């Protein structure tokens, strides 16, 4: 049941990205290009999502278990540190270079776009690199 709910959530999320135009990098870059001819659409996508989210998360936050009985694992992290700031900066630069963030990359991959596949493959490689750096940082020997 949880797996089905997860599939459905991903599907609705993906449909939202398509409907909003955010699965199209040109549209995202139109928002990020403040100095050019600016397309404010992305701001309204965020506004629409957060308007629903404000209500929904206010309800979710008071629950001790999900509607399907799963433990609530909504984030409790509050710290603002270098990892958050530098990580977000790297992410933002990558976002601005191609117009893809993780969700739209996967959706465009589903459209059969080879360029999106290249982006997603590199993104996964970046995530693997993160795990390797974390492992080295922790000083633990590689498990393989």
């Amino acid at each position, binding site marked *: 049941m949880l797996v089905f709910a997860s599939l459905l959530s991903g599907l609705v999320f993906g449909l939202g990205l398509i409907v909003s135009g955010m699965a199209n990098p040109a549209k995202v870059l139109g928002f990020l290009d403040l100095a050019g001819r600016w397309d404010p659409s992305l701001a309204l996508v965020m506004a629409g*999502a957060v308007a629903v989210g404000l209500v929904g998360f206010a309800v979710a936050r008071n629950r001790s278990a999900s509607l399907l009985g799963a433990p609530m694992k909504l984030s409790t992290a509050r710290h603002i540190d270098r990892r958050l*700031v530098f990580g977000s900066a790297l992410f933002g630069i990558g976002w601005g270079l*191609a117009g893809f963030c993780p*969700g739209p990359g996967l959706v465009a991959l589903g459209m059969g776009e080879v360029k999106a596949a290249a*982006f997603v493959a590199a993104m996964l490689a*970046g995530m693997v690199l*993160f795990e390797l750096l974390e492992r080295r940082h922790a000083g633990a020997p590689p498990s393989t």
Partner: protein
Amino acid sequence: MSIDWNAFTPWSALAGGTLIGIAAVMFALLNGRIAGISGVIGGLIKPARGDVAWRASFAVGLVVAPLVYSLFASLARPQIAAHYGALIVAGLLVGIGTRYASGCTSGHGVCGLSRLSLRSLVATAVFMGAGFAAVFLTRHLFGI
């Protein structure tokens, strides 16, 4: 700054954003989790027991969204102007950056802002700022 009124699509942006918000709230209420795509995917790199199926099914939902959408409406191809080199660099930065920051546009942007998290507001401000800067540099300063 001049607004590109021809590109601006306020209603589809709001409608798509609303769907994204619904997906995030559904996921929080049903699965008790944050619909942060970089986190959902990143957790597959170092899989924990019992933690793979829901992550994979969320990703599958995103990838099949275009197929489902095309059953009801015609699907426009995304415009991906970036060359392969830029896509690879962008993917690496997005992959590693989102993992260090523990979130991307969905986790910090949509869910974090909905939860009124200051940490997520800082992350969102930084990755948006970096995105604006990256587009300014590539389009207007270096004319790539």
